[in-house]
C-alpha cells in the first residue's frame, strides 16, 4: 500500500551512482522525457559499457536515452486486479517450460529449468491460497524422484553397467517370473539413469506446479466460451470445495479427541468419513440454494430455430472432427482428411458461439491479453521451440548416454535458451509486498520481511 518502491529509478542509473560528468541519475530516472529527447547518450551507461555503446551508438544515435525511458515504461508494475496477467499466459509459459524439460535428460539442464521456474514463482506469486500449492508440487516431485530411484535399486535397471555400487541380496524367484529381479547388483549407471528419468518427471511436475501457483485457476475458467460457462462454474465450485473438505476432516478428527478417541491413524480418518461427506453434501445444497437465489442458470429466450441450429452445428462439427481425424490418421483418406477436420472444427466453434447466446451472462473485468501476456506466453513458447530445435542440432548434449558413465556437460546454447524463461520474472506485474505479512500473521504484526513475496522486490531493487 505504501507504494514506496514503485517510483524507484530504473536499473542503470542505480548501478552507476553518478560518476560521469553531467550525469544526474535522479531527474533522468524520474522524468525521462528530457533524457529521451535532449541528450544523445546519457552517461549512466558509460560507466559500465562504454565501448559497446559507442559502437551501437554510431548506428542508431539518440536511441539510447530512449531506452532508459523504454525500460522505465516496461518495468513491472504492482499487480492488481486491473493489470492481472492472463491466466492462460502463465499456462502457456509453464507448458513451454515443461515441453523443454521433456526434451532432455541432461541433469544440469533439468536443474536449470527447475531453477528458472522457481525463480519466477518466487518473484511473481501472490499470497493467495492457490499460490501455496507450489510447495506441494515440489514435494511431490521429490517423492517421484525418490520412488524412481528406489525402484531402480530394488528391481534393477535395464541399463547395462560395470560400476557396481553395492549388491543387495537377491530374492530367488520361480522360473516363470523370469525377467523380474528383486535385489541383486546395483550399478552406478542404473542409478544415474533412474535419477535422470525421475528428475525429468519431477521437473514436469514442478512446471505444472508453477502454473498453478502463478495463475488463478478460477480466472482461467472464466475465459471459457459462454456455452461452457456452467461446466466452468462446476469446476470452480469443486475447487473451492476441496479446501473446505480438508478443513472439515481436520476439524472432525480434532473432535474425535474431544470424545476421548484416538485422533490419529487410519481408523480415525475412516470414521470421520461419513460426517465429512454429510457436511459436504449439506454445504453443496446450501450453495446450490444460494446460487439459485442469485440468478444462476437464468437463460435468455432463444428462438427454436437458433436452438436447433446450435444442436446441429455442434453435433455435426464434432462428427466432422472425428471423421477428419480418422481420415488423417488412416492411410486411405488423406486427401479429404484435412478439409473435413477444418470444417468440423469451424462448425463446432460456431455451435459453441451460438450456444453462448442462450446465456444472458456478462463478464466482469475479464483478464486482458496484453503485451505483457504476449511476452510471458512468448517466452515459454520460445524456450520450447529452442529446445526442440536443439534436439535436432545436438542430441548428444541434451540426452547424454547413461552408459558409459560420463559427467554431464552444460550445453551453452540450450542453457541460454532456457534462461529466456526468466522473462516473466521481469515483465509480469509484481505482487504487492505487504499483503503476505498481513494475511499470514494478522493485522497487528509488524512482520519483518517474510517469505518470497517480500524478497522479490528486494531483488528487483538490486537488479
Amino acid at each position, binding site marked *: 500500500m505504501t507504494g514506496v518502491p514503485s517510483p524507484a529509478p530504473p536499473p542503470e542509473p542505480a548501478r552507476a551512482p553518478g560518476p560521469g560528468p553531467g550525469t544526474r541519475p535522479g531527474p533522468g530516472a524520474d522524468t525521462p522525457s528530457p533524457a529521451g529527447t535532449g541528450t544523445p547518450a546519457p552517461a549512466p551507461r558509460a560507466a559500465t559499457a562504454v565501448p559497446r555503446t559507442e559502437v551501437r551508438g554510431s548506428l542508431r544515435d539518440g536511441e539510447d536515452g530512449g531506452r532508459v525511458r523504454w525500460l522505465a515504461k516496461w518495468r513491472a508494475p504492482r499487480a*492488481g*486486479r486491473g493489470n492481472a496477467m492472463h491466466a492462460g499466459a502463465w499456462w502457456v509459459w509453464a507448458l513451454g517450460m515443461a515441453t523443454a524439460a521433456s526434451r532432455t535428460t541432461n541433469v544440469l539442464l533439468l536443474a536449470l529449468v527447475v531453477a528458472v521456474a522457481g525463480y519466477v514463482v518466487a518473484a511473481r506469486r501472490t499470497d*493467495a*491460497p492457490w499460490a501455496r500449492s507450489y510447495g506441494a508440487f515440489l514435494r511431490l516431485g521429490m517423492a517421484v524422484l525418490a520412488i524412481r530411484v528406489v525402484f531402480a535399486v530394488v528391481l534393477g535397471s535395464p541399463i547395462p553397467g560395470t560400476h557396481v555400487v553395492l549388491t543387495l541380496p537377491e530374492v530367488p524367484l520361480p522360473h516363470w517370473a523370469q525377467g523380474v529381479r528383486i535385489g541383486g547388483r546395483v550399478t552406478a549407471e542404473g542409478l544415474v539413469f533412474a535419477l535422470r528419468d525421475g528428475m525429468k518427471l519431477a521437473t514436469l511436475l514442478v512446471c505444472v506446479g508453477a502454473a498453478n501457483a502463478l495463475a*488463478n485457476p*478460477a480466472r482461467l475458467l472464466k475465459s471459457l466460451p459462454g456455452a461452457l460457462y456452467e461446466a466452468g*462454474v462446476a469446476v*470452480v*465450485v469443486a475447487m*473451492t470445495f476441496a*479446501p*473446505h473438505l480438508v478443513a472439515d476432516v481436520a*476439524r*472432525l478428527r*480434532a*473432535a*474425535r*479427541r*474431544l*470424545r*476421548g*478417541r*484416538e*485422533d490419529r491413524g487410519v481408523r480415525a480418518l475412516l*470414521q*470421520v468419513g*461419513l*460426517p465429512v461427506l*454429510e457436511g459436504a453434501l449439506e*454445504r453443496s445444497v*446450501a*450453495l*446450490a*440454494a*444460494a*446460487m*439459485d*437465489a*442469485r*440468478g*444462476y*442458470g*437464468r437463460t*435468455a429466450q432463444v428462438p427454436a430455430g437458433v436452438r436447433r441450429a446450435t444442436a446441429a452445428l455442434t453435433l455435426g462439427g464434432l462428427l466432422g472432427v472425428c471423421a477428419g481425424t480418422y481420415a488423417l490418421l488412416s492411410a486411405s483418406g488423406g486427401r479429404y482428411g484435412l478439409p473435413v477436420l477444418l470444417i468440423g472444427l469451424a462448425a463446432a466453434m460456431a455451435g459453441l458461439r451460438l450456444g453462448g447466446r442462450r446465456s*444472458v*451472462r*456478462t*463478464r*466482469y*473485468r475479464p483478464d486482458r491479453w496484453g503485451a505483457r501476456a504476449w511476452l510471458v506466453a512468448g517466452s515459454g513458447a520460445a524456450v520450447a521451440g529452442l529446445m526442440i530445435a536443439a534436439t535436432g542440432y545436438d542430441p548428444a548434449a541434451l540426452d547424454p548416454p547413461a552408459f558409459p558413465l560420463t559427467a554431464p556437460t552444460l550445453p551453452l546454447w540450450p542453457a541460454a535458451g532456457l534462461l529466456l524463461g526468466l522473462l516473466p520474472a521481469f515483465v509480469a506485474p509484481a505482487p504487492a509486498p505487504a*499483503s503476505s505479512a498481513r*494475511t*499470514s*500473521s*494478522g*493485522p*497487528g*504484526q509488524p512482520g519483518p520481511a*517474510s*517469505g518470497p513475496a517480500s524478497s522479490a522486490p528486494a531483488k528487483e531493487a538490486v537488479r
Partner: protein
Amino acid sequence: MIRFEDVTVTYEGATEPAVRGVGLDIPEGELCLVVGPSGVGKSTLLGAVSGLVPHFTGGLLRGRVTVAGRDTRTHRPRELADVVGTVGQDPLSHFVTDTVEDELAYGMESLGVAPDTMRRRVEETLDLLGLAELRDRPIASLSGGQQQRVAIGSVLTVHPKVLVLDEPTSALDPGAAEEVLAVLQRLVHDLGTTVLMAEHRLERVVQYADQVVLLSAPGEPPVVGTPAEMMAVSPVHPPVVGLGRLAGWSPLPLSVRDARRRAGALRERLAACTPPAAAAVDATDPSSAGSGNGPEPLVRAERLAVRRGRAEVLRGVDLTVRAGETVALMGRNGAGKSTLLSTLVGLHAPAAGTVEVGGAVPHRTRPAALVRRVGLVPQEPRDLLYADTVAAECTAADRDAGAAPGSCRALVAGLLPGVPDDAHPRDLSEGQRLALALAVVLTARPPVLLLDEPTRGLDYAAKSRLVAHLRGLAAAGHAIVLATHDVELAADLADRVVILADGEVVADGPAAEVVLSSPAFAPQVAKILAPAPWLTVGQVARALEAVS
C-alpha cells in the same frame, strides 16, 4: 413490497404445517424484524420471500406470496434474483467465487448486467460497505464480520428492492455486528431498500426495526406491529425490554438511550441497594490480589504461545482457572479465543510456555485420559456427534468415557427433557443439539468444562436454560471457561472476564469490573443504570423485591 396472503407451508413428511395462515404486508423501505423462539418457522417465512420455499426445499405452499408484484408460485428463485437478495446464516456457504471483487460481481454477471455498469456498481458497493481495502483479498482469509459484509454486498450489487437476512449478526463480535447493522440502516434510509431480517440477538437489532413480525409458537399466525407493542407481548425480548417491563415503563423503551431517559426513578429506588456485582468485586479483590488462597487452580497456562503456520495466534497468555469459577473469554473474531480453548484440550501444542489442565499436559495426554480432566463443546456442537440417533450417540458416549450405561442419556434428560431417542442429531434444534453435545462431554465427568460460543443460534429460552445448568455445574465445583461474543451471557454467568486481543490478554478481572469499563462489552442493563454496577435484569428484580 412483500405481501403474504394467507400462506401456509407444509414440508414433505411433516404432519403439521411449518407456518400457518400468514397474512403480511410489508411496505417499501421498511426494516422488518421477524422474531420468535427457534423452530417457529422464521426461516420458512424468509425462504418464501426469495422463492426458495417451496421451489428449492420442496413442500406445499398454500396461499400467495408476491414480491414487487411477482408471484413466487410462477417465478422461480433465479427469476426473482433481481428483486430479492438473500443472505443465509452461514456466509461461507453463500460464496461462489474466491475473491471479494469477483464475489460482488457474480450476481450481476448472472443477470447479464452490462460490463461498465457492473464496474461502477462494484466500486459503489465497495465504498458503501467499507470493503475497498479488501477488494483483491481471497474470501477465505477474511474475518467473520468482513465475510458477512461481503455476503451482503454480493446481493446488493444487483440493486434488489428487498433484502432478506437470516441471523446476520449472530456469529459476529459486538463491533462487527454494529458495522453490519449500520450498513443495513443506511440501505433502508438512503436507498429505500426493504429489509426482512430474522435475528435471535434482539438486543442488537430491535431498536432499528420499523415493524416486528412476532411468531410466538409453531403453527400460530404471526402478529405484526410496532416494535414497542410487540416487545410488550413477545416471549423473547432483549434485556432493555425486560428492565422496562420490570419497571412498568410504557411505551417500552427499545434502545439504551430511551431507557436511560426513563431510568431516573429506577436508579433512585435502587440507590439504597448494593449491587451484587459491587459486593462480588469487594469479595474477590483480596483473593485475586494475593492468589495464594482459594482452591488449587485446575487450569494453568503460563507465558503460553501458540503458532499456526507462521502466524502467532497466542502470545504470552497467562490464565488460571480454579474449581467453581466461571471465566468468560471475550474479544473480536480471530483474537485467539478458540485457539486458547483448543490448546487447553491438547489440539495445539504450545510453541512456548506451559499449559496444564487438571495436573496433565494436554497435548501429551492420551485422549481417553484427557476427557476425564477436561471437556470442550466446540463451536459447532454437531462435530462431536457421529451416530445416527440420539440413543446410539449416548451409548457411544458411555463407552468412550467408561461410564455406566445410561449415564449420558440421564444427563440429556436432565439438561433438556423431551429430546426424542430415535431422532437424528442433525434434525435436532440448535438448543437440543447443544444439550446433547454438552451431555456427551459431561459423561466423562471432567472437572474442567470449556464451551466455544455456546449461545450461537440459541433463543432466549434455550439460553436461560443453559445459564441455569452452567450455574449448577459451577456450584458443583466445575471450572468453566466459555468463549463468547454474547455480552449479556458473560454478564449473567461469568465470575471473571478475560479479554483477548491479537493473541494477548488485555484485560483479566472480575466480570463486573471488566465489562463495565468498556462500552463494547457492557451489557444493556449496565449501560442503562450506570454508574451503579448492575449487570442483569435478574439482579435488579431481586434487589427490587428485597426493597419492597
